[in-house]
């Protein structure tokens, strides 16, 4: 049942992404609308999958790579739909849904067995901390998509190459606005996620902060977005500079999410460690 839900979600995301790509190439409003409803349908299925998995496992399904990649993808699509509806820009989907699709494909490559969770981690904090973190990641992913679009559109305007993609991309102002909104939503979420993480660490392991690689990199990510927010609010950073910052921030964020597992030092947050059930 879960596998069926998972693969139908994957399938619909695939079709929706292809439709968004077609929308990028063909000026048909109907393609955009079709893609929008497809992705919304996929999102509902994905929610169903996640809820079913929650009840089967008895805890929030973000304890191994299969689950986390899928959960990340779910939050990206959720946040994206919210922004698409708010700003009426279907074309944002052409830049964001491929990322969610890649995450789902990656997720499908990892074993889907439900891991035994060490008792220390069985807590309400698991849900609160991880959901906050993932929603903030998702918001920054949408900001990343808008930033790429901004850079493309800005290049077109500066180089005076006004082709069909230029026609279709929204105004620089709107793209910058989306970027800014993402930042104002994502940054507080990330802040609270880090704080709840620290509180949870205190209850589970007895210490608020242990400079675990995941914690360190989360802090680095936080500083990058804090710098961007500060720049925007005080000296009027915007446009290209803000877009470049969001792109850098996104790659650091990806490293925080995935790359930390590749580091030689063992992290408390590493999914393999969680899987093995070993704890400090």
């Amino acid at each position, binding site marked *: 049942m879960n596998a069926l839900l998972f693969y139908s979600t994957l399938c619909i995301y695939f079709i929706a992404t292809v439709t968004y790509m077609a929308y990028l190439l063909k*000026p*048909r*409003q109907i393609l955009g609308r079709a893609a929008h409803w497809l992705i919304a349908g996929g999102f509902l299925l994905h929610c169903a999958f996640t809820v079913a998995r929650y009840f089967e496992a008895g805890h929030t399904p973000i304890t191994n790579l299969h689950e986390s990649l899928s959960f990340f993808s779910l939050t990206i699509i959720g946040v994206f739909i919210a922004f698409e509806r708010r700003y009426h820009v279907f074309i944002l989907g052409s830049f964001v849904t491929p990322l969610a699709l890649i995450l789902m494909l990656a997720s499908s490559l990892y074993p889907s067995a439900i891991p035994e969770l060490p008792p220390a981690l069985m807590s309400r904090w698991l849900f609160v901390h991880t959901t906050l973190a993932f929603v903030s990641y998702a918001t920054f992913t949408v900001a990343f998509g808008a930033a790429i679009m901004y850079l493309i*559109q800005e290049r077109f*305007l*500066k180089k*005076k190459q*006004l082709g*069909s993609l*230029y*026609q279709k991309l*929204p*105004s*620089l*102002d*709107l793209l910058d*606005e989306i970027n800014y909104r993402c930042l104002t939503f994502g940054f507080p979420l990330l802040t609270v996620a880090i704080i709840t993480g620290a509180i949870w660490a205190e209850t589970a392991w007895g210490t608020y902060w242990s400079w675990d690689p995941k914690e360190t990199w989360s802090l680095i990510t936080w500083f990058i977005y804090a710098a961007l927010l500060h720049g925007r609010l005080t*000296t*009027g*950073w*915007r*446009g*290209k*500079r803000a877009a470049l910052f969001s792109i850098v921030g996104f790659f650091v964020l990806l490293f925080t999410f995935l790359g930390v597992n590749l580091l030689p030092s063992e992290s408390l947050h590493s999914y393999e460690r969680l899987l093995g059930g070993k704890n400090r």
Partner: protein
Amino acid sequence: MNIVVVGLSHKTASVEIREKVAFAPNQMEKPLRELVELPDINEAVIVSTCNRVEIYASTHDVAGGMARLKRFLAGYHDISLDILEPHLYSYHGEAAIRHLFRVASSLDSMVVGEPQILGQIKTAYGYAAEYKASGIILNRFLHKAFSVAKRVRTETRIASSAVSVSFAAVELAKKIFGDLTDKTVMLIGAGEMCELAAKHFLNSGVRGVMVTNRTYERAVRLAEEFDGKAVRFEDLFDQLHKADIILSSTGATHFIIGAKDVEGVIRQRRQKPMFFIDIAVPRDIDPKVNDVANVYLYDMDDLQGVVASNLQLRAEEAKKAEGIIDQEIGRFFNWLSMLEVTPTIVALRSRFEEVRQAELAKTLASWKDLPPDGQKRLDALTSAITNKLLHPPTTLLKRTGQGGRTDLYVDALRQLYELETGEPQEEELGDLEE
């Protein structure tokens, strides 16, 4: 039944001729009523805009109908037909259908892709419908033209880009700023182009206009015209940060705004974007200004480049539109053909049945001792013969209804069997479009 059109447009007649034959929009009742009272003319729609005057009609007699329309157009406006004739074009059948579809889709317009024409045709049809000058054929024809125009509009980008320099500037501004309603335009210098562009910006809803000129009095005069604010030329750089869009066209022989100036201004604006439009030749603004972050500079050549590529895009899109029209003509033509076919088939069948019944009755009357079984057999036999004979022409007609020489067959059958068919009825035609 055939569709014909007679008319003239900006392509065939100068404005002096066009204005003479134009119909005033609030006096459409009289000409429409006169038209449908003409012999040969069943239905009529008059399209009268500043670029074209056309009469669409349905008629049984193509040549006679077109001649009558021409005489009507000349007679109604008191012009000799000899003067009018060289400017007139007339089409019938498929060509007339193509003509209206092209006109409605704005492919025949002076500026291809301009959006007004569709609305004008809708108004024209409104009058015809109001005064009952249009019937089932023109109703269907006009509605089809509206849907074709809509399809062309949504499936091609024929109207999606600006084809004048000042509109191109407005469109660029929208791609930079999104909404223009809280933006301020600054005019540096004066000139026709500059003022025209400023008007376009005002129509797009910009909040304010500032005007500066080396002669302050001229700036004041122009500012009054735009309901804006005059700025002394010496104060240009003190005020520049207040402007989002700058239109420059002074007679200066050197750059009056350099990259360094703009860098200072953009800092003062906390990086809020600026859009410089340099209409002057020689140029007023150093091209290096375009390299400053969040600043966009377009000069006359750039804008003309945008217009040229937009025109090219429209030409390409127009080809696509012609393809759509080809498809739709086929569909509509099938419907029109079937309009004739169904009543003809019905008439042919009843003619055969009539003859059969009459002959059968005669035979039975003279053959008194035929048992009931024999009567039945005789009935079945004659019925089978007529059906067998009718089968090939029926299927042929139905098949040729899908685009063939239907008219030819229909006319031949009518004459051969002396058929009389009434006017086609909407209900029995069904919908052949989908």
